[in-house]
């Protein structure tokens, strides 16, 4: 388990190094995910210990957003002043994005299988 957690950290570190060196505006961990994914493709299977470690982290993923979420307390004043444009934009945009993406995906998948 410790070994595979180390592997995950190494992938993240490589990601951060790549992003920092080339000045790419993608987060290091996202690049790290691609690094780990490439390693898995090369290996051809997922080592059992890695599955366990990763699943453990992913099951706790909701928890990991809580500290950043509590940052909302710093912005109550600004959020209060612009409550209408911000909440309208969040509600309309998030709903529209989910609906359009899902319908587009369904439509394209159907178009693909009908032929």
């Amino acid at each position, binding site marked *: 388990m410790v070994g595979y957690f180390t592997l995950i950290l190494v992938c993240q570190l490589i990601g951060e190094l790549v992003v920092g060196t080339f000045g790419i505006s993608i987060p290091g961990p996202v690049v790290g*995910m691609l*690094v780990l*994914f490439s390693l898995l493709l090369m290996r051809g299977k997922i080592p059992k210990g890695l599955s366990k470690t990763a699943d453990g982290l992913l099951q706790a993923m909701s928890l990991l957003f*809580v500290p*950043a*979420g509590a940052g909302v307390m710093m912005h109550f004043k600004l959020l209060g002043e612009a409550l209408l444009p*911000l909440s309208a*934009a969040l509600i309309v945009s998030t709903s529209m994005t989910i609906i359009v993406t899902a319908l587009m*995906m369904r439509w394209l998948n159907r178009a693909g299988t009908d032929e």
Partner: protein
Amino acid sequence: MNSIQETWVYLNASPLFHLTLTMVAFQAATWLFERGGRNPLLNPVLGAVIVIVLVLFATNTDYATYFEGAQFVHFLLGPATVSLAIPLYRQWDRVRGSAFAIGASLLTGSLVAILTTVGTAWLFGGSETLLASIAPKSATAPVAMAISEDLGGLPSLTAVLVIVSGIFGAMFGPLLLNLIGVKDWGARGLAVGTASHGIGTARALQVNETAGAFSGLAMGLNAIATALLVPILWGLFF
């Protein structure tokens, strides 16, 4: 021996207290979520945030002090994001099979996310700083914050907006998807991941592995799409 009050003052300033507060608040919110039949409206992230903010206000603690303890939890977001490679690998055959549909849907979704956000905020009289802060809100937090800063927005406000749209998507996404009758787990995951990045993905993973994998993929791809599209679109309008 110290009085309990002295010990409390000491503990309240140590990282242990706020780390424990984060865990306990989340456990309580999760308990409520489970008791409520895993109803998405009882989102545990939202529940935990409410409890924590109330405690911090009651104890007159600022966010920086809280974060000294909470940073240990926050740090694991990076490794968890890297770990999304595992569900992606498990679902790779499915993903590869519909690569074109995924790419086209994601690009459309990303455009819709940016245009409807800025358009709605503008209609309701949002200032230019506000528009810049909210434009990248569907991308994962670090990307969104960097874009917001480039456009002259407030990165810390962007972080909050990213999280709120994540929670909103996790809460209402399943409901909206049921309403329009999209049952395919891949399409559902992709939609939630595009709109609601990591928080949507965390939720999708709890429900279905395929949805989780597609959601994680959408989160990564939308980070890239948003970073490319927002500056271009912003240049066209402002």
